[in-house]
């Protein structure tokens, strides 16, 4: 690539980044300054940055309860997703009668939006006696078809001779999955962790329907009740938003390198 085209590409990328990061910057700026969005003239640098609004947000709602609920549910979702999706993905790399039927069923399921199945999902959760519980909130998110397919495509890229060698070495199918396939599919694992964590962390509608008591509320529900309780809350609201978003951003940043590899391998070998 010539210098001129490199400069051109970078200029475009930097300007796109600028527009994408501006709202995030604005949220962070407001969370430390409490300045109203419509202040004129708008200031780029916060006048008197401080952590007051974070402290206020922390004490206004039961932050520790909300955070630990969300964190426990997200952790459960991530672990169960990893186990179930890897197992399903590995099974789908094998030949078995009705495999194409299973694949079509999975793909068709992806086309149905969650909102369309929310009533049966609610009834099922109620039947299981899991309403108003963390397990009930986690239940519909315990496996994601996208992640199953991601594991499948990653596993298919592992040479079959490795699996055969492992079989001759005396490994069971479960051991082949855990000792060979998963360690060789780090991008899929990273992608699975990020997607299931973020989806679980950000989920609003399902917890809203399932949860009745405040002690089971998650962060997004807490945000709504936070909004409902106060009138002039600009600074605290933005501080709370930052606290809600921060964990999922951290998880993403920690695993983003493998995440991008996971998504691209899924796209090309799909």
């Amino acid at each position, binding site marked *: 690539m010539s210098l001129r085209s490199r400069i051109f590409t970078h200029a475009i990328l930097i300007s796109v980044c600028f527009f994408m990061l501006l709202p995030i910057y604005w949220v962070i700026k407001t969370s430390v300054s409490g300045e109203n969005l419509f202040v004129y003239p708008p200031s780029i640098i916060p006048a008197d940055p401080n952590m007051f609004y974070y402290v206020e947000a922390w004490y206004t709602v039961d932050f520790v309860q909300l955070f630990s609920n969300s964190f426990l549910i997200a952790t459960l979702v991530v672990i169960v997703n990893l186990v179930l999706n890897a197992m399903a993905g590995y099974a789908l790399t094998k030949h078995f009668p009705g495999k194409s039927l299973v694949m079509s069923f999975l793909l068709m399921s992806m086309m149905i939006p969650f909102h369309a199945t929310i009533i049966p999902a609610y009834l099922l959760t109620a039947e299981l006696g899991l309403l108003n519980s963390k397990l009930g909130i986690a239940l519909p998110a315990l496996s994601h078809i996208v992640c199953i397919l991601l594991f499948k495509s990653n596993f298919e890229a592992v*040479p079959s*001779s*490795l699996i*055969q*060698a*492992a*079989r*001759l*070495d*005396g*490994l069971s199918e479960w*051991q082949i999955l855990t000792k*060979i396939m998963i*360690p*060789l599919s780090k991008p899929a694992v990273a992608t699975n962790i990020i997607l299931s964590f973020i989806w679980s962390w950000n989920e609003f509608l399902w917890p809203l329907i399932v949860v009745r008591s405040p002690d089971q509320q998650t962060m997004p529900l807490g945000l709504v009740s936070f909004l409902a309780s106060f009138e002039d809350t600009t600074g605290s609201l933005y501080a709370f938003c930052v606290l809600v978003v921060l964990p999922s951003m951290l998880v993403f940043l920690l695993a983003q390198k493998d995440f991008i590899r996971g998504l691209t391998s899924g796209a090309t070998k799909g």
Partner: protein
Amino acid sequence: MATVSFRALVKAYGDLEVVHGINLDVEDGEFVVLVGPSGCGKSTSLRMLAGLEDTSGGDILINEKVVNEVAPRDRDVAMVFQDYALYPHMSVFENMAFSLRYRKTPKAEITTRVMEAADILGLEPLLQRRPKQLSGGQRQRVAMGRAIVRKPQVFLFDEPLSNLDAKLRGSMRLEMKKLHRRLGVTTLYVTHDQIEAMTLADRVVVMNNGHIDQVGTPDEVYKSPKTLFVAGFIGSPTMNVLPAIRDADGSVRVGGADGFSIDRSDIPEDAPQNLVFGIRPEEVFVGETILDDKGPVVTAIVDVVEAQGPDTLVFASLGGHDLTIRTRPDVKVKAGDAVQVQLNISRSHLFNKETGRTL
């Protein structure tokens, strides 16, 4: 160590049968090479023996015990794959120790066995490296080391040298031969390279189209091929083949009108008229290598001369049929020459043209 037997072994994928009821007995400690072109069923047979493919018919016996239903890990066989199949996320040591760990071998013994194998194969300096940090030859040795540490009853090799360059292949062949002599483990080796087959094997099994065409020592399959296919597949350059017609008086006319006649009254009377005459390139003499009593002398036109150093290949035309001659480098012939060539009849072969089998 163990004996291995195939009894009417069949493999079919749906309606397509790829191995047609083959029979083979491998003796204890023997080095047997299955050789044949791609798709002849040699790898499939090996994989059935390893338990990586189900059999469709017949039996596989290891030490006289039918193992058709025995899981791969319980057959006590170790396999070296064409692509080595080293676990990329493990070091050389871990790769070699891996199978022992899952067989509940004590830690101290694992270390001893891995170090022993590393010593045999010269892998000690590489034990902490990952496979991607190794060269092709080193990876090949690690794959062999992984098989050795298990001390299996049978070694299986599935084209293990085909990913190496020619020079390395030569030296690895030698190492494998030495290793077999040292360990004495029954070995089945699959290759499509007839030089590997000839140099490594105690016995060669030539497979064609899902059948075994011939089983014999390298010398036997080279000097006394049972079929036209074996004659053509074993040896480089391949055996010269010329059309031949059997006459009523017991003589055989080779190479048409410009050819020659040979006396073969020993041929059975029910043999067909249309035959194929075969002779190895080194059994055709040219120039000063012609001797008085070896066989008929005919004229051939030289097309191409290839000097290969230790010997020279002369590609000629005899009555419109291709004839390859391997001769000494000091024999001077050049393209376009009409030269006298002599065929060593005592080392020639006649095949039934229809069945391809030797007479």
